[in-house]
């Protein structure tokens, strides 16, 4: 059966979008942070679900290729964690201290 023949999966994007935006909006009030976190969640969920779907599809259609499929997913997992963790990481700006050290 073709990968995209089952129409139920075409309804998933709305779930990803709504969950990402609503969850992110409950975390922050600033729109730049809301957008940044929402995009991070969209990327993470899409890549996780897509990778899992691809793995299952390869295993069901080409059973002999399972070592390649598992290897590919492992590499993909490392790349996507590296990407999303960088995307979500906040840049730390040094804050001025209220009581700077006094020269002796």
């Amino acid at each position, binding site marked *: 059966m073709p990968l995209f023949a*089952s*129409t*139920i999966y075409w*309804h998933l994007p*709305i*779930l990803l*979008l*709504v*969950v990402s*935006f*609503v*969850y992110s*909006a*409950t*975390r*922050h*009030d*600033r*729109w730049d*942070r809301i957008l940044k976190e929402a995009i991070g969640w969209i990327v993470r969920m899409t890549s996780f679900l897509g990778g899992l779907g691809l793995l299952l599809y390869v295993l069901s259609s080409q059973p002999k290729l399972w070592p390649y499929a598992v290897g590919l997913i492992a590499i993909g997992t490392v790349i996507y964690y590296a990407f999303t963790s960088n995307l979500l990481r*906040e840049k*730390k700006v040094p804050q001025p201290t*209220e*009581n700077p050290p*006094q020269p002796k």
Partner: protein
Amino acid sequence: MPPPLPSTPEPRKLDPFAAFLSYLVPGLGQVIQGRVAKGLLYFVCLYTMFFYGMWLGQWKNVWLQDCHKLPDMKIAGVGLPNALKDLSYRKEFAGQFWMGAAVWPALVQYFSTPTPDERDVAAEKKRPANGMLGTYMQAPTEAELNDLQNKTDKRWDLGWVYTVIAGVLNILVIYDALAGPVVKDEESPDDAAKGTGGAA
């Protein structure tokens, strides 16, 4: 000179009225608080998802079933009252309930529609219309449920999942109206994770 003590974060002011408004209509509490764009985001996102889910389920996936003829439910040997027993047979409604006024028609139908025992279900071709609501959010008959699951694809199941997720997400929205966002603007997410300025 001793180092200055770290300042303790001020406790957050709670806004129960805004939380109640956000329960009634997702995002309404935020609009009242002046966070209009955010309120609109919640409203559009959650109502889109909820009614999209209802559409997937052919408008027959939000209801509260009258299960008084089914076996009693007991927790630690104590029987549940009828309403809780019905809820335990239709757990999905516990999630959908948090969509607020949008699911109140299901409650109206539950309390005002004659039960299947009080009417001749086998003989009737359609469920009895209940005033202005008609059969909207009325509990489907067993024959209808069998048809939905046998003659259609899995969209009916996906539909009620969407409505439940929309309701559960609205709990987060209610909390946002009650106590504000988890991370304050002036603090970083790292601080919130450590609990130094998190939710009240």
